[in-house]
């Protein structure tokens, strides 16, 4: 399988680092070398080159390498840029690559997937690699899915049977209408479709299984010196640490994954949010990160002035031990991280909130892929409800069946490969 598209990704660790290795694979890899380095070096020999963007601006001085396909790691033409590992440099080189025609950023696992598709590694190797890479966190997920997997498959099998019988009714109308028995769809037909659609919709609102791995995400926010770090430490101290399963943990916010009463949490301490001009550029980046951390939060503990935090944040009056600091009459919790007063009550409330938001133990939960397939099925059912032509209704029901088949891996190999290779980090 040779692919028309050329992909690139940073295959070394997240910047900042000593060196940033950016790999480019595909038919345009050679063009990428020409565009950035101005020449294609001798195959398989590192050579120094000045990388420039399309406007001719110097990006970096880097080592570049050229490997002609198919005898490469991916089985395709391959170029490597070993540039300086600063964040800005890596971003600039990636940006220059992304602006080239026919080149795009790689999907997770795509390099490995191409290697497999081009016969460079076999599936067993690939699977082994995947298992090795994720073993530590998979333990957590497997425990949840061991409970849930069978339950979900049974559920899907039940839905599939129902759709099959609906399909059979439509097909009867289509293939045998000129015979006597089946001229029209029964009245309850649309109702049955609607009932199933609703059932799927309910499933789609349930917490996803990834949440078990990620844990309930609690972000501490507020102005500088509001006591965030002290509270952060009070919350995570003496709790059992678990390894964060999230790849690429950002450096500017501090994250700590712990289990409280057996419920997984990720606590995030953000850089202080400070309005205005005083912030220097490094601080500005930190504040950006803090904002994106807030966007991903399940709960925000707001330690600033009342009403000034993000919508829905838990108002916390911290530092109750400090005289005259931050009066918050409407605070949900008043506590002192220094003395420990009120911290236990906060933890209890967090555990309660997390239990409601995470998949119930023993109940089947959908992962992102399953969720996407089920959403497809629900969407097709909805669209079938609005159609008058039985031929198109039949097509939508076929889509539903296909989505179910893909959900359990019955349909074709692509889904399985997507699942498998989706587990790799980019560029490995």
């Amino acid at each position: 399988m040779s692919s028309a598209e050329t992909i690139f990704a940073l295959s070394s660790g997240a910047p900042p680092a000593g060196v940033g290795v950016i790999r480019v694979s595909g038919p345009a890899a050679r063009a990428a070398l020409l565009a950035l380095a101005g020449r294609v070096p001798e195959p398989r020999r590192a050579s120094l080159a000045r990388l420039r963007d399309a406007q001719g601006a110097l990006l970096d001085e880097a080592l570049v390498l050229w490997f002609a396909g198919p005898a490469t790691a991916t089985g395709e033409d391959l170029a490597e840029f070993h540039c300086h590992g600063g964040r800005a440099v890596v971003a600039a080189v990636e940006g220059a690559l992304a602006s080239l025609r026919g080149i795009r950023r790689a999907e997770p696992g795509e390099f490995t997937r191409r290697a497999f598709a081009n016969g460079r590694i076999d599936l067993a190797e690939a699977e082994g690699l995947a298992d090795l890479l994720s073993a530590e966190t998979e333990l957590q997920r497997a425990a949840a899915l061991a409970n849930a997997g069978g339950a979900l498959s049974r559920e899907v099998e039940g839905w599939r049977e129902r759709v099959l019988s609906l399909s059979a009714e439509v097909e009867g109308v289509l293939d045998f209408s000129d015979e006597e028995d089946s001229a029209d769809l029964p009245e309850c037909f649309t109702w049955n479709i609607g009932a199933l659609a609703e059932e799927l919709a309910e499933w789609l609102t349930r917490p996803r299984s990834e949440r078990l791995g990620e844990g309930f995400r609690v972000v501490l926010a507020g102005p500088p010196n509001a006591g965030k770090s002290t509270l952060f430490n009070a919350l995570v101290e003496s709790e059992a640490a678990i390894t964060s399963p999230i790849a690429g943990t950002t450096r500017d916010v501090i994250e700590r994954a712990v289990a409280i009463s057996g419920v997984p949490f990720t606590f995030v301490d953000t850089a202080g949010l400070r309005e205005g001009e005083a912030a220097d550029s490094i601080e500005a980046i930190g504040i950006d990160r803090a904002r994106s951390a807030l966007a991903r939060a399940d709960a925000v503990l707001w330690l600033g002035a009342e009403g000034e935090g993000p919508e829905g944040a838990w108002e916390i009056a911290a530092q109750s031990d400090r005289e005259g600091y931050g009066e918050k009459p409407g605070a949900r919790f008043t506590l002192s991280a220094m003395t420990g007063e009120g911290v236990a009550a906060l933890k209890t409330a967090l555990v309660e909130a997390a239990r409601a938001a995470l998949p119930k133990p023993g109940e089947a939960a959908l992962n992102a892929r399953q969720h996407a397939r089920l959403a497809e099925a629900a969407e097709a059912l909805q669209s079938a409800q609005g159609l008058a032509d039985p031929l198109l209704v039949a097509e939508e029901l076929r889509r539903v069946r296909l989505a179910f088949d893909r959900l359990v891996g019955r349909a074709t190999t692509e889904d399985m490969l997507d699942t498998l290779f989706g587990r790799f980090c980019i560029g490995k």
Partner: protein
Amino acid sequence: MQSFDVLVIGGGHAGVEAACAAARMGARTALVSFDLAAIGAMSCNPAIGGLGKGHLVREVDALDGVLGRAADAGAIHYRMLNRSKGSAVWGPRVQADRVRFKAAVQAMVRAQANLTLVQGEAAALVLKGGVVAGLELADGTMFHVKHLVLCTGTFLGGILFRGEERYEGGRIGENAAHRLAQQLRGADLPMARLKTGTPPRLDGRTIDWAVLEEQPSDGEAWTMSPLTPRRINPQVFCAITRTTQAGHDAIRANLHRSPLFSGAIAAAGPRYCPSIEDKIHRFGDREGHQVFLEPEGLDTHMVYPNGISTSLPVDVQEEVVRTMPGCERAVIVQPGYAVEYDHIDPRALTPDLQLRAIPGLYCAGQINGTTGYEEAAAQGLVAGLEAAAAVLGKQAPRFDRANSYIAVMVDDLTLQGVSEPYRMLTARAEYRLRLRANNAATRLTGLGIEAGCIGEERRAWWERREATREMFHVKHSQRVHARELADLGLAVRRDQGEKTLAEWLRYDGVTPEALAPWLGEITALDPLLAEEMAEDAAYAPYLARQDAELRDLRASEALPLPSDFPYAEVPGLSNEMVERLSKAAPGTLAAAGRVPGVTPAALSALLVHARRRLVSGSFAA
């Protein structure tokens, strides 16, 4: 000794298409039949086409086959089934005058270049090293043959049943090929038994047509083949009657005399086309079943009562017929009967319809467990094209489930086998929206031209049509604002902006006729093509969505599974899976996924193993 590239045994619908297709490809071809005068006979109902079957007729025709034009030559009644539904499930069907149909088939067969007709009984295959090398006739004549196509219908172990009566042979008045049958049995091929049936034929002069509801030929101008410019024969009407309680009582009282119920016939019959005794037995609560009274020709009084296939004794058949309105005095000219016959388990065939066990021997038609002229003809076409291509070192057209019902059938047969006579249904085609009866030429004629099986006349027609299509494309890509359509009184919202005409055709009520101000006179150039392209436009969003699915399918098809793939060595495959897969011998991983009962886990294991073999194989090479 005469020698042929391809020799076809049997002059039914499969044999005719196989022989003509091989000859069109340029192979030196022979067709051997007991009785050359019987070539092209319609042995059962006098109708061609129908739901799913009409698609096959159009596909065979698109590849320049015989069936569509012969159907037009014999047609005395045209009807587009399912007209009220979406066009992808419309089923063109004709009733054909038996005599005119047969005459047309024979004329085309005789006019076919590269084709020699041989009257005689095929007695035995000549094998050399297990591979087909020739054929011996009953009179001792020998032929050198490179590839041989068996289209012998129900001749293998066929037994006729009518009440307590038994006859050996395929049909009334014909012999069965005994020695050949014994030879095939000796080859230890997987075989099974099926049954089929036919209703009694009535004398139309004894039917009181005046009291019955008429079903006229539809008033449109379409034909089965685009090479038939207009309908040829005078059109007759059919009539509709029903079975009655009195008739059902007679059947129930005599069920024990039906070989189907006495245990004489154990084989499965078609669920889709059950005998009347089956219908009464299984749907006992029904007060009556519809029966279509179909005239068999312009010069005969024979009438085919479609819907009462039976193997009951003659006296019961008469009793039942005479309880139907309008048939109180009807006379049976030829009683109905059931046939039980052997067929080859089609899983023993490769996708080119060649027997894995006997290289060079192809099978097509009822012998593969199908029912129907159209199914037979389509298989004959495939076997003929493939056999000729193999001999000549050419490439037959590539059929797949997304381009033809032909491929759907061959794939179903060779992977899934049959448990009842296989009949085409539109429900079998997952990509039905793109496989319409009216776009068969668009889908297949180009492939046929590439493969070299299309004659001059059709090629010229096709080229004219492609030129017209280009003109349509240009017209369809004009951009028109919603306001302009609304001003014409079309039900589109004015605020939808500008779209191409092709996009507008997706909207309800926007027809090519309604767009006449922009399309102009062009529609008149080829109204059928205009309709087809309007439908393409209407279905476009659905087809676009299927594209992703098809890419997925193609990726799985890119992983081959050789026929000797050692399933038993695949870790994680259960014995049951190993057996199912070995029997069906799927050619690719995608095909393995369609083998019934193969689980997702088995597929994953297979994927890993097949991939590994492929990789190590390519390294070794």
